[in-house]
């Protein structure tokens, strides 16, 4: 089964455990500035929203890369950056409509979420279930269930 990161902002508290877990997984450091997932704090509404790559099927970043440095991981469906091939031209960062591919100054390459090879550290670290790793075909299941409960999980009228 192909899985996908599923983000529910209503559950996010803004604790940054995901950002630390991401940087630890990839750089062996607690360093949100190197994280591939970012939590945005919309303080006027009180909302915190984690955001990262959604692993597009027809990925703009992959199509734009002039040296074929972005490939699909067959096991997870993640679009991954081949660091040996990346020349740091940043064209992918322009092509991505969502801003989730970014240049890393210290390596001279770009980085993006690679789903940690199938066990995303952010989802493991999230203490509230705001970030989960679920069946990619059923990311709407939980929301459907909530509406199903509203319409169907009621006492019978008669």
């Amino acid at each position, binding site marked *: 089964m192909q899985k996908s990161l599923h983000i529910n902002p209503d559950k996010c*508290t*803004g*604790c*940054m*455990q995901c950002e*630390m*877990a991401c*940087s*630890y997984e990839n*750089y*062996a*450091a*607690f*360093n*949100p*500035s*190197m994280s591939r997932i970012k939590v945005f704090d919309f*303080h*006027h*509404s*009180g*909302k*915190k929203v984690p955001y990262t790559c959604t692993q597009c099927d027809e990925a703009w970043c992959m199509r734009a890369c002039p040296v074929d440095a972005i490939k699909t991981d067959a096991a997870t469906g993640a679009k991954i950056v081949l660091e040996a091939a990346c020349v740091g031209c940043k064209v992918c960062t322009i092509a991505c409509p969502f801003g989730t591919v970014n240049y890393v100054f210290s390596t001279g390459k770009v980085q993006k979420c690679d789903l940690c090879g199938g066990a995303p550290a952010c989802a493991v*670290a999230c*203490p*509230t279930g705001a970030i989960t790793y679920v069946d990619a075909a059923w990311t709407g299941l939980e929301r459907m269930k909530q509406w199903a409960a509203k319409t169907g999980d009621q006492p019978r009228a008669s």
Partner: protein
Amino acid sequence: MSWARRILRVNLTEGTCAAEPLNMQWARAYIGQRGLATKYFVSEVDAKVDPLSPENKIIFATGPLTGTMASTGGRYSVITKGPLTGAIACSNSGGYWGAELKMAGWDMIIFEGKSPKPVYLYLENDTALLLDAGWLWGKSVWETEPALRAKHQDPQIRVSSIGRAGETGCLYAAVVNDLHRAAGRSGVGTVMGSKNLKAIAVRGTKGVSNIRDFPEFMKATTAAKKVLADHPVTGQGLPKYGTQVLMNVINEIGALPTRNHREVQFEGAKNISGEAMHEPRKTDGKPNLVTNQACFGCTIACGRISKLDEGHFTVKTRPEYWGASGGLEYEAAWALGSANGVNDLETLTYANFVCNEQGMDPISFGATVGAVMELFEMGVLKKEQLGIDAPFGSAQALAHFVEVTVKGEGFGKEIALGSKRLTAKYGHPDLSMSVKGQEFPAYDSRGIQGMGLTYATSNRGACHLRSYTVASEVLGIPVKTDPLVTEGKPALVKAFQDATAIFDSAGICLFTSFAWTLADVQPQLAAACLQEFTMDELALIGERIWNLERDFNNRAGFTSKDDNLPKRLLTEPAKTGPAKGKVSGLDKMLPEYYELRGWDKNGQLKPETRARLKL
């Protein structure tokens, strides 16, 4: 290791910034943050110094777990000599700023001297610059933070700053970071203002990578997070209700100081409680509480995010207060509410917003208003002086006072001096509900006897965060003790004081201690820092830190006479509730406490105590 092993020394008089290696011997002996910064402070500053003179210093310090995946590992403390008390001041804050400082590669910043004109420190990893803050002076915290991000064209900058209260000399001005997280007490923001230091803007991209044993650390922090998640207080009560979970509980046990401690139960407690914050308002159908929020690294998330009723009298013409922002914690709700007899949740929330916006401690402010209202009802203070009728329970008076106090206008100038100075000026010093000049927080020591000893001996003046025996006496953590008896409390207070010093020095939040004991902290500290941080060693370090602070206060001129409580708590019995008829039994506890501490009758460290603790 986990320390960045580097400190920044900023001389505001000379306008210089210089890096220094961290004194690792001291780090070994005092851990970090509260303990380590206090060691630096007392070694460099004369205890007799005038807190608002250039000779005082102010230190912003992280702990070794700050900026790590340890739950709540985002704390920092501000250490200085406090202008409200003249004692050591050490105020702790969460939010994201502390972790950012650590990520920039610094354990602490020591500010010394006084800048000839307003400045702010801009710190981007190794780059430290003192820049002109003339254009920021007069701005609120809420204006300063976005202004600095805009100026440096960097939306990821974190800011710690003062608002108008710190600029105008309010003696309990706070340092505020991330809009509504505060190093709130003892006037640390006042000292910052006295040095013409408006803000510290930090961007750190180095991260924390020098954990002694990463696999061991991940194992220890994961296990400790589970302890927090599984505990009813840290796993359920605090996320849902915040510290406001306590309002109804403390009222029921008859330890909710009301109307300047005249009473111990407040008939309006339910209206200003954590439960009330969830209730839809009659006016607009929305609850006061929007959501909970975590600080950096925190898996508890007790923070309150509230929205005011836009039609409320305090804000109906001022949309700048209509957004979501830091809501009421228990101590603020008590000080702004019960201490004044005000039961209007919206007014309290508004006053709390203003305290955050302009950097002012809501506890000392609210408690001082309590004294003002009592003096008004006695006829000592008049409407003409105050600018408004101020009987107990007046939400209008509270809203008026918060506005004039943060700006230092009118009678607000006098409220800004705190209850000790204000009540003395008007001939009723006994009506100041304070110890060493700092106002009480939200627990009445007639109904929770251990808190009387806690307050009397707290090194920063009356404070609940130096030994929170409420945990034991009310909540049964780690073991239940009877709140109405004095027996056993000296040992309980000492144990809480020493353990708390470790939490405050490690870089983690004290609220973890509802679920964690030192046995949960120790593996995390040992894996991050040094194997030598054993349980025995931590117990000794905690005691050492406590005595280090005490010794500074003694040298500053405090004696056993200052380990006292206001006459009201010692002579006026509680009128209602389980503690009815009780006064504080401080005199029964203090001698035994001194004995346990290894202090003489004057409260001075005995030579053998000094030797045992290597002080």
